[in-house]
């Protein structure tokens, strides 16, 4: 196998809150020992609900926050060990698109200013015509370069966010729920655009989302996370889920076809707080298949079939 473009090894991140004068210090593991490889050109999906650590994982991969444990290797370089200057230079090759298109652009900057920023931070000026090319690539008119963010719709702003990520011609882009705050019609436009850009520029995406239906449509391989840990890696988008949580996520997805209504409730209860993780499997309290074993011992991630690891004592 060729060398993966991105490798995450045992990534963990602990967050602490309180500890001031009036509140006791508490800490939680937002990400617990996540490892994966990503091949060049692959679209890897990370799916899970709020508090599963998917956004923290995205930021650990780009080293926007420091890991408590573990390491990230990008194209052979240990990202977690790089100094300031080297890290800044590496950022040309790794970019990010953010969830909220309303706050991801500085309200005082025009679209052109925003697209010049990736060059400004590297102490460069954008090459002539580069801004116009970027606008073309994301389907915005060149006249829009002089607009301010408040003059644009949510979909247009997200296109600016994508153009900014593309500015330095990166190899790898983290997409953190890039369509979660958009209408479904605009979501589909943006997904179409991302697919075109990947094809034209040979990009590698790490696609973070809460929508398993969307992830299965767009991604080659899918990490399913629950309360900070990977519970299953779907080797292909259409692989049958083996973990009960993945099954529940899939059943919660509404198919636009009244003939296929779900009559049973997919799953009971809600995600417990990460501040007091239960002993054993984190999903046990909501799992229809849970036994005493699940409540006592946290199941490790193990390959049930080649390339299909699942962390479950009683897989489907």
């Amino acid at each position, binding site marked *: 196998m060729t060398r993966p473009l991105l490798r995450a090894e045992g990534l963990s991140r602990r967050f602490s809150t309180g500890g001031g004068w009036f509140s006791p210090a508490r800490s939680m593991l937002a990400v617990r020992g996540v490892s994966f490889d990503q091949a060049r050109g692959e679209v890897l999906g990370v799916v899970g609900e709020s508090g599963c650590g998917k956004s923290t994982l995205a930021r650990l991969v*780009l080293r*926007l926050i420091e890991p408590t444990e573990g390491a990230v290797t990008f194209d052979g370089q240990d990202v977690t060990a790089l100094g*300031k200057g080297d*890290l*800044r*230079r590496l*950022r*040309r090759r790794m*970019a*990010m698109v*953010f*969830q*909220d298109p309303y*706050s*991801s*652009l*500085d*309200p*005082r900057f025009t679209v052109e200013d925003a697209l010049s*920023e*990736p060059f*400004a*931070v*590297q102490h460069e000026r954008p090459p002539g015509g580069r801004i116009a090319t970027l606008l073309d690539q994301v389907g915005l008119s060149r006249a829009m370069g002089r607009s301010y963010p408040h003059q644009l719709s949510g979909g247009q702003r997200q296109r600016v*966010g994508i153009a*900014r990520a593309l500015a*330095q011609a990166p190899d790898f882009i983290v997409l953190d729920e890039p369509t979660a705050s958009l209408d479904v019609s605009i979501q589909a436009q943006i997904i179409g655009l991302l697919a075109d850009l990947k094809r034209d520029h040979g990009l590698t995406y790490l696609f973070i989302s809460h929508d398993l239906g969307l992830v299965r449509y767009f991604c080659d391989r899918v990490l399913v996370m629950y309360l900070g840990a990977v519970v299953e890696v779907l080797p292909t988008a259409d692989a049958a889920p083996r973990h009960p949580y993945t099954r529940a996520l899939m059943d919660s997805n509404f198919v636009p076809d009244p003939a296929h209504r779900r009559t049973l409730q997919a799953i009971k209860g809600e995600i417990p707080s990460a501040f007091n993780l239960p002993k054993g499997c984190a999903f046990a309290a909501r799992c229809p298949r849970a036994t005493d074993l699940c409540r006592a011992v946290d199941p490790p991630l193990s390959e049930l079939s080649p390339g299909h690891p699942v962390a479950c004592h009683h897989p489907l």
Partner: protein
Amino acid sequence: MSLARTLSPLIRAVRSPMGAAAGLWVLLIVALAILAPVVAPYAYDAQSLPDSFQPPSAAHWLGTDEFGRDLLTRLIYGARTSLSVSVTSIALSVFAGMVLGAAAGYVGGAFDRAVTIVVDLSWSFPEILIALILVAIIGPGVTGTMVAIGVAYLAQFTRLTRAQILALRSETYIEAARSLGAGGGFILFRHLLPNALAPVLVAGMLATGDAIILEATLGFFGLGAQPPLPSWGSMMSSGSALLFKAPWIIILPGLAVAITVVAINLFGDALIRALDIKTRLREA
């Protein structure tokens, strides 16, 4: 950043009748203060004892004081003192407050805690008390008053700037800049400070109104500008002894203070609406 974009909130602020009237008054007072030597009909220290205590007349539009000095002239020069002291002190205060607040908000840690404790402590004293103590230490006069007023308001701008920086730090575009490789200084000067500027400047403008009152109060106690240089506060002070003999001596500077402060506040309010920063000011 074009000039038109910077000016557009000002234009929107004077579009309401209230904002326009207030803006016009402030503009008039500022113009009179700057042009005092040109427009004032007499010299501010020209005494003429035979003409003392004259009510308003053709020669002296607003009458004269106990030394026969022209009150209109002294009001105009009083505006010069009042405005130069309050504007200078607030400008110094805003600048120092932004530096302190931005440093505290951006650096965080022990430095932030130290600044916050000092600011919170001084926040619990009335500005007048802080100013009086400082004038007592530095000594009366224009310079002493400026420093005293500037320090008295420092806590407000430090606190506001720090709150702005903290709120702005969690905006996604800050994280986006970091994801592109931007360092601390780049983010502070390109994104954080420019976005924090508008609310702090408006708060500074509103505080200028309060500073005029504070300057007048210090002047009333004889701690501000020293005679014969007129200030609205010292004029009221000398007028208070003559309240029944020549009431205009105290009423006129009193009115000047009141109308100017109200106008500054109304114009500031119009600016807040035009800039749409009400909620951001309240956060602090």
